[in-house]
């Protein structure tokens, strides 16, 4: 029984530390605990007052910008897929040959992956200026970083029997890559590419706000000019597109992976 008591005491002490730490952190960043709860109902009623009913007058412009956003997301992840596959072949345990190249690409991929997309947008903004091209660059960079890692994992998980069989027949390095490695990782290539497109559509609101392109630009404009009813329509459009894309891509993923 003493063991159980000890365990329970440890759990209670741990929970107390967690609670105390949370309150401390909250006070350090000046999070208003009481205000956040008491003002919540007021916030919801203000939201209803300001944002409803949705204003549909600018719907055509919004749909056009949404189309640009989707195109940007797909184009960015296409670049990410191509470059990511090449880099993944170079850094994977099974296909990587050159150690220096491996180190360099690992470093670049980690750099692109771990710097948030908003920071990339801010850095590149100075030299590329606002517009769709900047958003495309940022989306390509972040999908490259993400896809390199998952593609390298996918190549590592492939069955090495195929590669060995081809090696035994005397196939060259590139023949092995194109006849054994790529066909085997093709389904996961596509499904991760779709996943990154979905991520790109999600983050294109942030990137659009910073780079002035797509639906995010419209959202930040409506916010600046306090047209909250139009803003709400744009939000609904984004949510609809994400939900539809989520459903279709998960259906496609299920069909491909089987």
């Amino acid at each position: 029984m003493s063991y159980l008591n000890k365990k329970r005491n440890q759990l209670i002490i741990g929970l107390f530390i967690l609670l105390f730490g949370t309150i401390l952190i909250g006070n350090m960043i000046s999070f208003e605990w009481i205000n956040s709860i008491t003002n919540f109902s007021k916030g919801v009623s203000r939201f209803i007052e300001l944002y409803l009913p949705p204003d549909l007058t600018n719907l055509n412009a919004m749909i056009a910008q949404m189309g640009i956003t989707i195109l940007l997301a797909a184009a960015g992840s296409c670049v990410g897929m191509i470059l990511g596959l090449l880099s993944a072949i170079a850094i994977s345990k099974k296909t990587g040959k050159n150690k220096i190249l491996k180190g360099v690409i690992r470093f670049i991929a980690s750099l692109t992956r771990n710097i948030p997309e908003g920071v990339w947008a801010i850095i590149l903004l100075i030299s590329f200026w606002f517009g769709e091209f900047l958003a495309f660059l940022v989306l390509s960079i972040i999908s490259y970083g993400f896809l390199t890692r998952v593609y390298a994992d996918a190549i590592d998980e492939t069955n090495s029997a195929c590669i060995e069989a081809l090696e035994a027949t005397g196939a060259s390095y590139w023949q092995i890559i194109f006849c054994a490695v790529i066909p085997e990782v093709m389904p996961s290539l596509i499904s991760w590419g779709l996943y990154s497109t979905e991520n790109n559509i999600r983050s294109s609101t942030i990137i659009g706000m910073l780079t002035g392109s797509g639906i995010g630009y419209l959202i930040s404009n409506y916010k600046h000019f306090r047209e909250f009813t139009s803003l709400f329509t744009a939000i609904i459009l984004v949510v609809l597109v994400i939900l539809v894309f989520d459903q279709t891509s998960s259906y496609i993923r299920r069909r491909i992976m089987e």
Partner: protein
Amino acid sequence: MSEIQLVNNEYRTSKSKRYKLKNKDFSDKLIKIILCLFCISLVVFLSTTTYKWDQFRPEIIMNMAVSFLRFDALKFSEMTYIASLLINTVFLGVLSTILAAVIAFPFGLLAATNLSSLRVSNCIKAVASFVRAVPTIIWVLIFISSYGLSATTAVVGMIFHGWAFFVKSYSESFEEVDAGIIEALKASGASWFQVITEAVLPTCATRIIAWLAMRSEINFAVAVVVGPAIGVAGTIGSVINAYSRSGFYPGLGFSILCVFIVAFLFELLINRLRTNTID
């Protein structure tokens, strides 16, 4: 050799009398269609957007690359200021993660099909997937009208998206708990509450910690961006924005290095936790 299986159907031949070694089915076509769509979107995008190349300033990139790591141009007070903002940003992410995880826990239990009824679980999952479809930055934007441009807004907004994330991940990991353990506990007369504390929590604990780390990383990235995109002050993003506008590249380089190091540490932590859960 059990791995080699005889193919029952005979090999078909194509028009030129060559054997077809592969049975083509719908998924192959689907893969090709999607690959084509990706390529078409890239081509359409590149051919329709006209980027004015006179806007492009390579000399700024060169200038940046040279002066990015000149930390000697940085005063000590500026470094400590950047570090304090970095700590603020990390705390913002961690705090909203913890609160979202705590709030989502009961909903996660109700959303797991093996612990609650099917109707309740479907209801909560539908709400969560709707909330998850709204990007985090939009949630923060929505709450500006009630809390103003403060840390409270950012935390409450991130809690909403994190709540949906945790409901999904909790319910997925709770559903993977061995049904035999739950049944054995129920048969020995354990209450619903005891089933959760004795069977569900111990098996999911490591995975929940991994989810927490993962969400903290996502929230950290959002907390960085919340400053320049919406205007919530007090995170490292606003100082990055200010330095890049004013052209003070050593400060920009130092703050980006700080962000990179924190995100890299998060990634290492997540990888470590993930290998722990697999083992």
